[in-house]
């Protein structure tokens, strides 16, 4: 009898000891969403790429490899890329995904009546935006270069195997930089989704793509960069997002000043000069990364009125426009999900309806 009783006490005390150990193990499990994710940061496509996924780290290695592959085939500055070969030889066989990107880009050029033009590259070079050695070219040079800018002259003969023979005119050079990152983030999102990842965040140099929601069930909170260079926080507002790409274009991204004038890298293909049509930033929210990337540039070029008209005609994406007189316009699809930051709380936020 006595020994049984003793065992009971022992058991209780041992249990007590174990229970008091429990917090040790709990203490290691911080209730922090970021700990659920594997993440990587690397430099590619002339920018910083950050990927975090709720999934296996080997998927990240594979993803990085896929990005490098695409870069090697599409970078305009890499010798031996398909785009470089096309630009020097004026004829090149494009691989399957390069073809998909090229035809996708040309589609945006057509849809926007040339507000996006992938053959603007020689003009962009002349301004120094590709190298950072900025200068304002003389008007004659711009006119001369502009005469060879015309995306409709790009001939693409798609073959049965999905590859294509591409031919461009003698003085033309193309650059797919305006859509490549959008395509790439979409490709990565598809790749992760196929491999069972249901929560991920991809940021390719400011092009954001979200898969699903956060592991805690909340939507992703994506900040939209303030286009105003005197911004204290750098943040215009915050958008709640799931399963969309968010792509912002603005003059603030790359510019230089000369004689008190601000010159930025988004050129109007009609004039060969920086596009100044009243907009300072355009964000496109949608499910097609390539198109979102192309539209963020081309709607910036179009200006607020033409951009709003374009949205009304198509309605397969949402947008946030910021004008140089400090007004923010948002399409009705995302109006409820967007909030201006504290710094810009007194800005006018206007909804664009159908």
């Amino acid at each position, binding site marked *: 009898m006595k020994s049984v009783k003793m065992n009971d006490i022992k058991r209780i005390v*041992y249990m007590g000891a174990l229970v008091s150990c429990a917090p040790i193990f709990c*203490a*290691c499990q911080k209730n922090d969403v970021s700990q659920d994710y594997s993440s990587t940061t690397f430099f590619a496509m002339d920018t910083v790429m950050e990927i975090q996924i709720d999934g296996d780290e080997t998927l990240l290695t594979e993803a990085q490899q896929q990005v490098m592959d695409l870069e090697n085939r599409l970078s305009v500055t890499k010798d031996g890329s398909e785009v470089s070969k096309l630009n020097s030889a004026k004829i090149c066989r494009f691989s399957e995904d390069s073809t998909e990107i090229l035809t996708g880009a040309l589609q945006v050029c057509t849809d926007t009546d040339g507000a996006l033009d992938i053959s603007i590259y020689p003009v962009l070079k002349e301004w120094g935006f590709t190298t950072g*050695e900025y200068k304002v070219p003389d008007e004659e040079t711009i006119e001369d270069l502009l005469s060879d800018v015309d995306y409709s002259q790009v001939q693409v003969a798609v073959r049965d195997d999905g590859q294509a023979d591409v031919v461009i005119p003698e003085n033309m050079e193309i650059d797919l930089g305006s859509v490549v990152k959008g395509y790439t983030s979409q490709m990565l999102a598809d790749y992760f989704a196929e491999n069972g990842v249901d929560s991920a965040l991809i*940021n390719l140099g400011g092009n954001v793509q979200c898969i699903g929601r956060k592991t805690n069930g909340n939507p992703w909170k*994506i900040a939209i960069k303030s286009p105003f260079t005197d911004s204290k926080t750098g943040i215009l507002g915050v958008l709640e997002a799931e399963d969309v790409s968010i792509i912002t274009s603005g003059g603030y991204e790359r510019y230089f000043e000369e004689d008190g004038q601000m010159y930025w890298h988004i050129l109007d293909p009609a004039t060969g000069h920086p596009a100044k049509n009243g907009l300072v930033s355009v964000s496109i929210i949608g499910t097609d990364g390539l198109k979102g990337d192309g539209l963020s540039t081309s709607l910036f070029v179009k200006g607020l009125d033409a951009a709003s008209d374009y949205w009304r005609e198509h309605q397969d994406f949402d947008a946030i426009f910021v004008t140089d007189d400090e007004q923010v316009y948002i399409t009705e699809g995302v109006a409820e999900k967007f909030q201006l930051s504290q710094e810009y709380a007194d800005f006018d936020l206007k909804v664009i309806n159908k």
Partner: protein
Amino acid sequence: MKKNDFILIAVVLIIAFTIFAGQRLLNKNNNENNEAVPVAVVQVCGEVYGVYPLSVDREERIELEDGSYNIFSIKDGEVTMIEASCPDKICVNHPAIHSSYDPIVCLPNEVIITVQGNDDADGDNDIDSIAN
């Protein structure tokens, strides 16, 4: 028998308590490093180059192997890139930063400066990423 049992129990409890206390202390230290004290983390070519508390004003020159350089300053809890050998000067034009979601990046030199441990600074906390 009885005496040994109590010794064993006492030993187990002491070990448990020691580990528990140690863990708490460790966590507290980690918190101090990661959260309580905001720092600027400088990465060069994917490697951490240095970690600098925002509470101490300073100017630091980042030397790269090929002779290129970046100079950043920490002043009044904000980080600014004040000079760089890169041609485009995008990093120098970047506004001063004091929170994590908008790092200063110098692409040509592969330098990234992020601030860690200061996410609540603007009240716009919980931001996961920034589109720009």
